[in-house]
């Protein structure tokens, strides 16, 4: 195996970088695998990696209709945090956070996880009550965080308008220092390379067009490009398209797929070294290592698979950013894009068995999937390996919608629900 390091880079520089090995193979699919994972995004690749690494199941294929990491992994604003309200969600996201810390070394791939802290702003008394409640819960769950007042917020982000002159003045914030951002593409590529090295077959440009069942159990998938691929177990991790796959297997999910838009400014010199999020005025922003302001918008209200949303959503977001940061008024927006997010009624994911035996789904991450990538893959791998939910995944069964045991994270999940 080719290990990445500064020394390796120097060695390759001397040979004009002509001898770098492929980051992953481009294999022909086999007829049958122990596990087929549908969806080669961050979560699917992480699932494959942990299945191979922790559960020693290496006869795995990840089947991706486009290119690896080309869905929401490539389209988010890269924020990583774990300050969720309810125990179930907090434990799951904190599990992910712990994996983030050390992920670059584990994968031997620098995912540029940068723990520069996240501020969740409060603009009303009720916002502040909710922040107190969430930070208290986080603290007792062992998750870092504190409640800041407006003055403390302004000390962390002096360029933000924390005065009383704004329409909804900043009253305070929750602050999670261990939170931050990561380089989104690198996460997919790092997991892909590490999984490939453990023997996982990554099959790109291969679209699943049917899920094959026998006596109520899944036995494989039908693909457009490579015909039938059999599997003992199938895990679907296809954010945005989960309902489409569920329909192939004959059931519905409690999901709606919505456009979620984001945008970046032109690169400017470093001016913002933390992540600022506001649910109330609907906008969040950080600055990438390249210098772009990376800005997230709210979800559009309609169902949409077009990877684009409506312009007023962008307008509202920019208004919020300029309201918070008046000095950015003359900075320019470079590019916008959209992802498709599966939204769940309780703003929490589904990591679950399904009405079809041997078929499992990991979906419904809504606006918050990226931050969970390693944790999601890790618990889904355990779920697929054992055929029953990992302890942390248990509360996230799709059947919670039957008995009503929802985990309502709308307050903590993010923007504009």
């Amino acid at each position, binding site marked *: 195996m080719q290990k990445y390091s500064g020394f390796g880079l120097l060695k390759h520089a001397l040979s004009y970088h002509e001898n770098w090995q492929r980051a992953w193979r481009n294999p022909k699919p086999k007829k049958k695998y122990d596990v087929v994972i549908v969806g080669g995004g961050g979560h699917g690749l992480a699932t494959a990696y942990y299945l191979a690494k922790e559960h020693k199941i290496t006869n795995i294929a990840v089947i991706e209709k486009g290119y690896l990491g080309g869905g929401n992994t490539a389209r988010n604003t890269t924020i990583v945090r774990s300050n969720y309200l309810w125990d179930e969600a907090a434990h799951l996201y904190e599990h992910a956070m712990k994996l983030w810390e050390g992920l670059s070394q584990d994968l031997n791939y620098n995912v540029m996880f940068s723990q520069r802290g996240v501020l969740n702003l409060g603009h009303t008394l009720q916002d502040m009550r909710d922040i107190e409640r969430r930070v208290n819960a986080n603290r007792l769950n062992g998750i870092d965080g504190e409640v800041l007042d407006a003055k403390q917020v302004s000390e962390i982000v002096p360029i933000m308008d924390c005065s009383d002159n704004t329409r909804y003045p900043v009253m305070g914030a929750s602050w999670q220092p261990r939170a931050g951002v990561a380089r989104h593409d690198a996460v997919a590529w790092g997991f892909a390379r590490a999984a490939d090295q453990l023997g996982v077959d990554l099959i790109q440009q291969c679209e699943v067009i049917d899920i094959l069942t026998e006596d109520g159990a899944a036995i494989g998938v039908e693909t457009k490009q490579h015909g039938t691929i059999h599997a003992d177990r199938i895990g679907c991790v296809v954010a945005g*398209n989960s*309902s*489409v796959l569920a*329909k192939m297997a004959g059931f*519905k*999910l*409690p*999901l*709606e*797929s919505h456009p979620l838009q984001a945008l970046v400014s032109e690169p400017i010199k470093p001016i913002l070294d933390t992540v600022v999020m506001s649910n109330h005025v609907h906008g969040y922003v950080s600055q990438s290592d390249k210098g772009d302001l990376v800005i997230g918008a709210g979800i559009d*209200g*309609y*169902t*949409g*698979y*077009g990877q684009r949303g*409506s*312009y*007023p959503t962008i307008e509202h977001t920019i208004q919020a950013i300029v309201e918070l940061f008046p000095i950015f008024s003359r900075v320019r927006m470079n590019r916008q894009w959209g992802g498709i997010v599966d939204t769940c*009624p309780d703003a929490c994911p589904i990591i679950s068995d399904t009405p079809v035996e041997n078929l499992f789904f990991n979906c419904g991450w809504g606006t918050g999937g990226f931050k969970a990538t390693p944790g999601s893959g890790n618990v889904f791998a355990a779920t697929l390996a054992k055929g029953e939910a990992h302890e942390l995944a248990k509360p996230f069964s799709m059947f919670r*919608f*039957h*008995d*009503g045991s929802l985990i309502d994270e709308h307050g903590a999940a993010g923007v504009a629900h």
Partner: protein
Amino acid sequence: MFLIYCPHCEEHREEEEFHAKGQAHIARPLDPDNCTDEEWAQFLYFRDNPRGLHHELWVHASGCRKFFNITRDTQSYEIKETYKVGEQPGVTAAKSA
């Protein structure tokens, strides 16, 4: 941004006047008390969420306040028709297939 024909106002108006309200034609069970939890969940949460033709409920929130239905392609975002609550769609996946 969509341009939506309100079947009540009988004119095209900007999307900003409307709100999407999810899948259309989901009838409230007539006898909720005799539904199982699962049946109730199907009514409450589980959705078609199709990639392609979709019948969805919208409300002309900043206009006439009327709810109505839209048949729309969720991929191309083309609106095929709008029609009043209580009416059936003229364009369906079965018909266009």
